[in-house]
């Protein structure tokens, strides 16, 4: 039993029904949340038409145009002809693999809308990370095999390294590109990444574009498959142009459009000592589409903040009257956004995310929220359909962090559900896993039949996911956005 947990009613369960008389910080009963009912709900963005098979077909085409070309040019047979041809083949293959991983990785963070709508932005970033790691490993192999291959010419390793790092044409660019990729990869390792502020890391990460550009020429001048095969070379160039086009269309244009059509801060309400709800409104809202459970990138258009964007989940179901965000001051940026004066311009880009009311698919729901992760859960609960009988497991560090509790309780009750809370620092709960299978089953006896929707800190998400799978919830019925930054 958690040491700091409030008095419990059942000895076996960590989760409890919050006391109705418990003082809550959102005690202002006349909170403006009901105001949204006066406005029309925003219409949801259209579903993506993209199928898994489309993705598979695109990847197959990509591999055919690259690795296939390598094999066609005799890349495979190189491995059976001794060390030197094997080194050549390996250099070419690893080079193609590294470039391809880099290209697809960049295409993913271009956030092509159809892919984002099908898989979610967080999933795109997860893939981006895998591809980045793949690229770094392939590039390491490429460099090592390239030096070995060159040294087979008989000039010795010292001379060969001098050759491939600059004495050969366009290789200086490739060398600098590889070094930048190494730096970008290292600074993205979690242990190192933590030492930087998000923006410092992000700007460093952008130098990867520079790396891709400066290493391109050596690919088509020295890369055997592209230097000699005109068709392959043009396909390769076209691939790069396609990725640039995707960046311009899906990444830069929406950002510019968001800046051109900003919303204004209509109101800010403090709901806890460090938590605010902020409502953004404007005429542009009428042309926007969004659903409960989605999130936006906010860019305050102020002299000292315009260069940062931060993701925030909608804290209430989106309506033409305004977009509400619940913001907890956890760092410089969220504190700055929470303290924006009324009328400030904020560029709003999105929506992103696929954790929408649709995931319920007519079944019963269990929500798991940690801290300010309640924001999208509240939005979703405002859009519940009958028969979902939602149970909300609301985890927080302090009592005052349980925000919107009264509203959540009535939203749950209206659909035949209930709210359970658990308060206290994680350390004090160390010998009792609140997301263990036993605790979850105690709290929600029919949890195995429910669809789970979660939002909260990463550690909580992973603990809860493990517990849910242990009690028999299918992986496909567990929905959450991974915090990727």
């Amino acid at each position: 039993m958690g040491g700091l947990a409030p008095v419990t009613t059942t000895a076996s369960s960590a989760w409890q029904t919050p006391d109705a008389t418990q003082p809550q910080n959102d005690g202002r009963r006349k909170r403006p949340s009901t105001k949204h009912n006066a406005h029309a709900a925003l219409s949801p963005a259209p579903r993506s038409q993209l199928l898994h098979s489309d993705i598979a077909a695109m990847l197959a085409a990509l591999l055919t145009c690259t690795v296939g070309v390598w094999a066609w040019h005799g890349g495979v047979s190189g491995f059976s002809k001794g060390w030197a041809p094997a080194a050549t083949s390996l250099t070419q293959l690893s080079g193609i693999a590294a470039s391809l991983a880099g290209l697809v990785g960049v295409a993913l963070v271009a956030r092509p809308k159809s892919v984002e709508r099908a898989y979610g932005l967080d999933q795109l970033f997860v893939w981006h990370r895998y591809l980045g790691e793949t690229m770094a490993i392939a590039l390491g192999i490429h460099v090592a095999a390239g030096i070995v291959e060159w040294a087979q010419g008989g000039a010795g390793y010292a001379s060969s390294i001098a050759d491939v790092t600059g004495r050969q044409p366009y290789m200086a660019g490739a060398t600098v590109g590889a070094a930048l990729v190494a730096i970008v990869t290292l600074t993205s390792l979690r242990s190192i990444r933590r030492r930087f502020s998000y923006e410092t890391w992000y700007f460093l990460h952008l130098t990867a574009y520079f790396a891709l550009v400066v290493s391109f020429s050596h690919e088509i001048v020295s890369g055997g498959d592209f230097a000699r095969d005109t068709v392959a070379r043009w396909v390769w160039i076209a691939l790069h142009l396609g990725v640039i086009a995707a960046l311009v269309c899906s990444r830069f244009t929406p950002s510019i459009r968001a800046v051109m059509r900003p919303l204004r801060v209509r109101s800010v309400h403090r709901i806890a000592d460090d938590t605010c709800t902020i409502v953004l409104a404007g005429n542009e809202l009428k042309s926007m589409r969004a659903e409960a459970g989605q999130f936006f990138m906010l860019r305050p258009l102020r002299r000292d903040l315009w260069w940062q964007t931060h993701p925030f989940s909608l804290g209430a179901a989106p309506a033409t009257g305004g977009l509400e965000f619940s913001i907890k001051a956890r760092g410089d940026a969220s504190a700055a956004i929470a303290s924006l004066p009324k009328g400030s311009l904020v560029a709003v880009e999105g929506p992103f995310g696929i954790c929408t009311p649709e995931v319920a698919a007519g079944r019963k729901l269990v929500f798991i929220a940690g801290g300010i992760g309640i924001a999208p859960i509240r939005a979703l609960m405002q859009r519940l359909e009958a028969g979902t009988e939602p149970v909300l497991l609301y985890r927080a560090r302090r009592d005052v962090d349980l925000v919107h509790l009264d509203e959540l309780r009535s939203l749950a009750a209206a659909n035949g559900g209930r709210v359970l809370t658990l308060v206290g620092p994680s350390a004090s709960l160390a010998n009792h896993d609140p997301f263990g299978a036993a605790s979850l089953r105690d709290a929600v006896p029919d949890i195995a039949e429910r669809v789970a929707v979660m939002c909260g800190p990463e550690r909580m998400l992973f603990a809860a996911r493990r517990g849910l799978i242990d009690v028999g919830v299918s992986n496909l019925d567990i929905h959450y956005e991974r915090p990727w930054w």
Partner: protein
Amino acid sequence: MRSSDRPASLSRRALPAVALAGLSGFILTQLDRPASNAIGTRTTGIKHGVTPTTANGSGANGPGQQLGTTIPATPACSGATVTGPAVDTRWGPVQVTAILRADGAPCSADAPVTPSDRNRSIEINQQAVPMIDQEIPAQGVNFDSISGATVTSDGYRQSLQALLDGQRG
């Protein structure tokens, strides 16, 4: 909210990345020194095989066999074309043909036979051989090896040396 912390400025956050990009650009310019006798430096207008030839061969292009030779013959350099032995290098045979001056030194040479089993060899030799050819009139058999094509350079030298030895002997 920590009011004492002023939000970080763009310049401070972007500085590491800008410095890294600048440093990269500088290193790039410093590294980018293609050697004048490295393959891939297309500084000369030499085109392999377009100059009128004194000796000619034609036919199928088999590895290590065909003598499709195209030695530049100029008024200053004319005479009988001599063919050296095919020298086996680790990548395949190299065979040189040359036109000799009266004193026995080569005034023009070419290697119509070079290793062609590997695409990489073809690529290297297409660039390296004309560069060696160009060195011959001035430097003869002691031409500078081509960086990145040392095997071909060595084979070329051996074949040419054997050719010269054969003429003398």
